[in-house]
Every structure is written in C-alpha cells, then in structure tokens.
C-alpha cells in the first residue's frame, strides 16, 4: 500500500529540515513509486522544507552548518527525482550568474546564496571563487543572464565589483547586478551602481524576486492546468 501523498510530501519537507540525507532520498523514491509529479515533490516537498530552513536561518535558529546539511538533503532528494522529469520540460527560470570576485577565495556566503536562489526557482550558474572580472561578463553575455550576483568577504576585492558593473554596462549586458558579503553595505552597493544588495542569503531571495516581480514566471508552476498538461505529455512516470 502506498503512503498518502501528503505524508510523502511532508516527509520530503521534514527530511530537509532535519538535515537527513537518507530520509530525503527515501522519501523521494516513495514519491516516484506513488506517482507523484516530480516537480510537485520538489516544490511541495523539498523546497517547502528549504523555505522553512530559510525562515529558521532568518530567525537565527539555524546557522551555516545547518543550511549546508539541509541543502545536502534537498539535493539528495532532487538527484532521485531528476531522472523522472519529463524531457520536454521548458525552463522559464531566470538565469543567474554567481561568483566570488577575483582576489577572494571565501565562498561560503556565495554558496548559501546559491542554495537559496536555486531553491527559490532561479537557474544558477556558479563560477566559483576568485573569478576574473571578464568571466562574469562573458558568461552573463553567453547565457543572456537576468541577474549577476557578486560576493566578497574582503575589503581588498570590494572595488572589483564596481569594475564588473562598469564593464558589463560597456559591453551592453542588460543583466541586473546584486552584491553582498561581509564588508558590503547598502551605501556601497548604491555607489557602485548595483541594482540590489542583500544582507544574507535569505534576503538575497527576497531582493532577487522583487527585481523580477511582475515579469517572473515561477519555475515548476503547479497549477492544476499545468499538472494536467504534464500528465498528457507523459511527464508523470
């Protein structure tokens, strides 16, 4: 006998909140067996769990180790679900290029933002750390990116953010830019011409979402209509 759908979705969410990789994979496998739409398993299961994690982080009940482990659980669940995605799934995700600017190798903050934005439905392209300025501009151009996220923990590399923003403008790249990191303040972000600033990873989601409000199509939309379209297309295994 299959478990109730709501139980499985609840388990997926709870496994993420509890930082439990094994339970997340198991619940994802159950979702497949029970013919739950893999997108739904993500949005109403894993991602819902991650939303709670984000709240716990904002309320300072969860810190960096917790988020990293919750993300591990989330990605473990996604790995199980991934082979069952319908092939023709078109992506309406906003494309985000993210990286730590040249001269700095501290990347935990950047990784947290990447996890949170990924969970919030953005398509993430991670350039890593110590990224040359031109790499941001080239990648944003190639991908036709919507948003470029620049991070640094060091005062010595702060000015590099301005170089990236100016060079992007010169190159005619229309992507917006969000900046953040230890030494960065809203005032500094404004001064260098960034479109957004976020204090932490949870705030980064709010800022990014507000940038695209009105035009953003949430990924993995799961209105009854779309769910039935997916079914017709054979999207549900």
């Amino acid at each position: 006998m299959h478990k109730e759908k709501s139980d499985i979705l609840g388990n997926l969410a709870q496994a993420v909140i509890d930082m439990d990789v094994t339970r997340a994979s198991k619940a994802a496998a159950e979702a497949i067996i029970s013919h739950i739409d893999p997108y739904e398993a993500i949005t109403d299961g894993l991602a819902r769990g991650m939303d709670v994690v984000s709240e716990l982080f904002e309320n300072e009940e969860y810190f960096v180790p917790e988020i990293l482990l919750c993300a591990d659980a989330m990605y473990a669940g996604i790995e199980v679900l991934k082979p069952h995605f319908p092939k023709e799934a078109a992506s309406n995700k906003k494309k985000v290029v993210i990286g730590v600017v040249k001269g700095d190798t501290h990347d935990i903050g950047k990784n947290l933002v990447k996890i949170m934005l990924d969970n919030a439905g953005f398509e993430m392209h991670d350039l890593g750390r110590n990224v040359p300025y031109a790499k941001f501009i080239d990648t944003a151009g190639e991908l036709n990116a919507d948003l470029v996220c620049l991070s640094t923990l060091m005062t010595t590399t702060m000015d590099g953010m301005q170089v990236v923003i100016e060079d992007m403008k010169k190159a005619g790249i229309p992507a917006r830019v969000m900046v953040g990191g230890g030494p960065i303040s809203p005032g500094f972000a404004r001064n260098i011409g960034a479109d957004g600033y976020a204090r932490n990873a949870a705030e980064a989601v709010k800022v990014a979402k507000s940038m695209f409000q009105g035009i953003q199509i949430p990924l993995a939309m799961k209105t009854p209509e779309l769910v039935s379209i997916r079914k017709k297309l054979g999207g549900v295994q």
Partner: protein
Amino acid sequence: MTPKERMAAMLQGKAADRLLVSPLILNFASRSLNLPVRSFCTNGKNMGDANIACFKKYRHDIVYIFSTTSTVAEAMGTRMYFPEDDAPQVETPFLQTREDIRKLTPADPEKDGRIPVYLEAVKRCVDAIGDEVFIVPVIGAPFTTSAALRGTETFIKELYTDPELVHAVMKVATQSVKNIIDACVKAGGVPVTVEPIATGSMISESHFRTFVLPYLKEVYAHIHSYGLPGVLHICGKTKRVIACMAESGADILSIDAIDLQEAKALVGDKVCLMGNVSPADGMFKGNPEIIATMVKDCITKAADSPKGFVLATGCEVPIKTPHENLIAFLEAGRRVARLPVNLN
C-alpha cells in the same frame, strides 16, 4: 605616557591619560615601507621593519604582527596561496580525508610554516620599539585553525556528522596554538588570539559551547599562566555568542558588527570591550569626517564600560585605507578618549 605605559596602566587598573587607541593595523603595516603584502608577510625582516616604520609614523597604542588567521593551520600542513599584494588565503586544506588526522601533529614554532617569520618580526620589533609599545602577535585560535585544516564547509558540517573528528582536530590545533604562544612569549611578544570562524553568523551558541569554548578556555588559561591578559577577537556578528566569549577566560573581547551599547549590557561587567569602527564603510570608504563621527559614537557608547574600553577598528584596517583616514581615526581617538572622557 608611552603606549606601553598606557596599556600597562589599563591592565592594572591604574590611572592613564586616555583610553587606548588601537586601530587593527595588520597587513596595512606593509604600506609604511611600500612593500607588497606577499614580501611583507613571508619575510621576518620585512614584517618587523614595516611594523617598526608604521609605529614611528602613527604611534598607535598596540603593534600587531599578523598576516592571516590560517597561519597556525599553515604551520600544520595546510597549503596557502600568496597573492602578490593581499593577505594569504587557504589553497588546499591539510586534512583531505578523515584518515589524514593520523598525520596531524602539533606545530613546531621554530621551523613550521611561517611561524619563524612571525617570531623574527616580533623580535625585531621588541628590539627596536619594545620599550615604548607592546608587540602583539595575532594567532588563529583552535576552531579557526581547525576549519583551515579541514576546509571550512566540510569542517562545520562535521559538527553534526562527525563530532569525534572535530574534537580530535581541535585537540591537536589547541596544542599548536599553545606551542606558538610559548614561542611568541619567549620572543618578547604578548600573543592574542582570533576566532572568526566561530562568529555568530556562522555557528550557533550551542555549537560554540560544545566545540569552541572548552578549547578557548584552555588557551586563555595557558596565556594567564604567563601573567598575560587574554584577548579574543571575533569579527562579524557576535551578538549570539558574546556571552560565551565572555566565559572563555579572555580579559578583552575585540568585537566588530555588534552595537557597543548592547555588548556593554550583555558582558560589560565581565570583560573589557574593544571595537569597533567599521573597516569598510569607515576606514576604507569613509572620509575623515565620517570616521571622527564613528570614533565619537564608539566612545560615547562604551567609554563607561565597567571593565574598560579600547578604541579599535572592528576588524583589520584594509590595506587600501587612505593615510588621512587612519590619521583621522587616531586624532579623533586621542582627542575624544582623554580621561576623564568629556564628550563635548
């Protein structure tokens, strides 16, 4: 008073002419001899001489010897990357696998990593300016050292997944820190410790209690055995962990992104506070007027802290800080921090 007399008076609770004014001049000292940071921090003579020149130029109240928080880990085998003109950063952590713990041994300060560079710098400074000012080598504390040995992300996840390994690494790291403290004291320095990876935006108070505090206590007990004061610097947001910091046995807490009034209310009756003009918005990107306002704000909030107050920057003075901004900090500090403090 000389900076040394002033600091001694403060530590002994005697009358001083003013509060200590101590911008955290670390790699910034390299600017005084126009040295790129790499040649400053990899050569004891350069590191010492630049700090001597820097002191003669600014006469700040404490001379720090420092390049990065990962120097202890480096001495234990973590490979660093040395940018031409910036602080070294971790390239490859030593503990690539759990089993590598068997190869981990406490650092030998006489020969491992760049500890000999630090020690030479300390000795040169002690010889040249040690009569006037305390020479303070700054050492990564056990948790920060362990994170640099294992890779920070892996390490902090292991607080949950492999606490046994965390404690094993912490034990060896603590021994290293103590060895290096011994060597610094022998060289005539007054060692202080920094634990930025244990900042409140990184880990919870409960993890701080379990994994950080016992080892910090061991470190400060060791420093106290020499009759020296314990100084704990943690930058970033520390509101969540400052109560624990005050339990570590450290006599002075150097803090960054926390309101001084709040810090005073939380732990002012237990420890001396030190801080916290913004390094980025103040020292680096600010101007003399902004900095003077920030200095006055710090002193207004904390000069009456029951266990004392040291005017400092929240974290390292950025290497690109304009000369006039540092002068503004020192002048405003010396003016406003005269004792008894008169804020008008």
